[in-house]
């Protein structure tokens, strides 16, 4: 039986041990052996090979393992870069990956306890979505051009037409050319839908989910973000886009809705930085020109049932009261196709299976797409998305 190195201190002095790991430092009389659980000192009678994977038999003397015999399993022919990546700053990346896995379990526990069904839909799809600001990766198949999914939305909505009422998915999405502190060309999306329900329920899910994750990590509903602790106890403040623009940019958003660049520039330069001071909140009621796949708000046709959650200034998710009208959906997709053509962008096809599902009928539904990597960043106090990824795109 191999003893994990973290378990040595619990042993009696004189205990016989078998351990294994990598030699990370050595002098004539001693070496440091590292395994996934920790580091231990070895007292040597013969020199070992630095950086080699090594198994050791010996006796624990309370401070070090006195080596009786050892076996070189595999010499390192190059410097151990992979180890350095996970081990630097006191095993920071390794610890974050362990915590990321715990967050993922906590997320699944949250949805499972609420009778959501976890689904997995295809990543290689005939239409990656027509949003003019998304650039998809094309793949060649024997059926012709396919794309890596930028969002599982179309396929998940087909399942709503099929009669599933509460579904969630944790999966990869692909968006070409998106690289930054909070962007990766390949990232993990958590997406869920509630049929015969509304956008308010999905907002409530969102704040409860984040509070659940925070509690499962630290015992209370507080995220230890890179900007400091953020109380995520529900309910979070809800602030309309109109109100946010008036308050933080001193501008009437209705004057910007037909100038997309000014709208987003104001958002990026003035509104989003101001939101960082507000802990956790929802930005909601987007102008209808930015509705995307959200339906118009009943009673106020100038805004859409679209919301985003911001935590410590990080945009965490984008949710909708879903557009379920097939006629309006096709009009929006055709408009997106025209706009893409106008801008010289690739014009992706309309997903006709999705359109057919809308024509079959999708119940009134709320849905949300949440950047799981960003949730992990917030929960672990990471500043850069790469800090919470096992292998970021930059290390491929």
């Amino acid at each position: 039986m191999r003893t994990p190195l973290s378990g040595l201190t619990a042993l009696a002095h004189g205990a016989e041990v078998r351990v294994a790991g990598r030699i990370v430092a050595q002098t004539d009389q001693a070496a440091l052996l590292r395994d996934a659980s920790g580091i231990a000192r070895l007292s040597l009678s013969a020199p070992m090979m630095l950086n080699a994977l090594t198994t050791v038999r010996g006796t624990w003397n309370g401070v070090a393992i006195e080596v009786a015999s050892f076996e070189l399993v595999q010499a390192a022919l190059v410097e151990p870069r992979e180890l350095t990546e996970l081990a630097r700053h006191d095993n920071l990346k390794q610890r974050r990956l362990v915590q990321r896995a715990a967050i993922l379990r906590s997320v699944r526990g949250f949805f499972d306890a609420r009778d959501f069904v976890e689904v997995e839909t295809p990543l290689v799809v005939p239409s990656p979505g027509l949003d003019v600001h998304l650039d998809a990766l094309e793949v060649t198949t024997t059926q012709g051009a396919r794309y890596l999914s930028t969002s599982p939305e179309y396929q998940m909505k087909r399942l709503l037409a099929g009669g599933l009422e509460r579904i969630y998915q944790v999966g990869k999405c692909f968006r070409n050319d998106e690289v930054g502190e909070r962007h990766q060309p390949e990232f993990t999306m958590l997406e869920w839908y509630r049929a015969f329900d509304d956008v308010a329920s999905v907002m409530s899910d969102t704040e409860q989910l984040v509070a659940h994750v925070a509690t499962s990590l630290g015992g209370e509903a507080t995220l230890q973000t890179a900007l400091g602790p953020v109380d995520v106890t529900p309910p979070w403040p809800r602030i309309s886009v109109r109100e946010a623009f008036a308050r933080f940019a001193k501008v009437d958003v209705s004057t910007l809705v037909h100038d997309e660049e000014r709208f987003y520039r104001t958002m990026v330069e003035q509104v989003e930085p101001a939101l960082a001071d507000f802990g956790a909140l929802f930005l909601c009621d987007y102008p209808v020109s930015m509705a995307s796949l959200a339906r118009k708000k009943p009673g106020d046709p100038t805004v859409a049932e679209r919301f985003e959650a911001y935590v410590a200034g990080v945009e965490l998710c984008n949710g909708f009261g879903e557009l379920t009208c097939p006629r309006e959906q096709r009009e929006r997709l055709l408009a997106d196709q025209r706009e893409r053509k106008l801008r010289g962008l690739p014009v992706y096809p309309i997903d006709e299976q999705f359109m057919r599902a809308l024509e079959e009928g999708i119940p009134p539904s709320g849905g949300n797409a949440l950047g799981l990597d960003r949730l992990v960043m917030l929960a672990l106090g990471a500043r850069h998305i790469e800090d919470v990824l096992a292998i970021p795109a930059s290390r491929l």
Partner: protein
Amino acid sequence: MLDTSDIRKGTKVQFDGVPFEVTYFQFVKPGKGQAFTRTKLRNMITGNVIERTFKSGEKLEKADMEEREMQYLYPEDNFYVFMDTKSYEQLRLTAEQLAENRYYLSDNLMCSVLLFNEKPIGVTPPNFVEFEIVETEPGFKGDTSGGTTKPAKTITGLEIQVPLFIEQGELVRIDTRSGEYAERVKK
């Protein structure tokens, strides 16, 4: 001309005849919206820092600067003296102009001196420099808490993190762009 996708830390651009160096950049893309690059730009003449947000794909003018290969000679008062090895012309830069790059200088090191309107405004050392470690914890004094790097100081006073196996007196290669340890140099 440069594109926003060319922006990196250290990229030099100019507006209205003034050179700026990118000290910070962030790709931002509000949900379902268009992408921007948010930047902090240091005025290379005055040192003032401004913020600018560029739309993705926007064109930027590359700063019109001359880079001259020059040899570092020695420090003099608060200045660092460099020489053109062909013309023997000498130029002096201040510690402020060199910023952290002063830690990478060693006698006779060939550097690229930046000139704007024929005045020196900065220095780019080679991507990699080699220095002796003069201060670091020897070996591992019973520390079994984990972690495989430790702090170390080079002969020039630069503080870096090095792997545990690096001992005092060893030569290491340092990446001057990130300021991080790159690898051990066998003597």
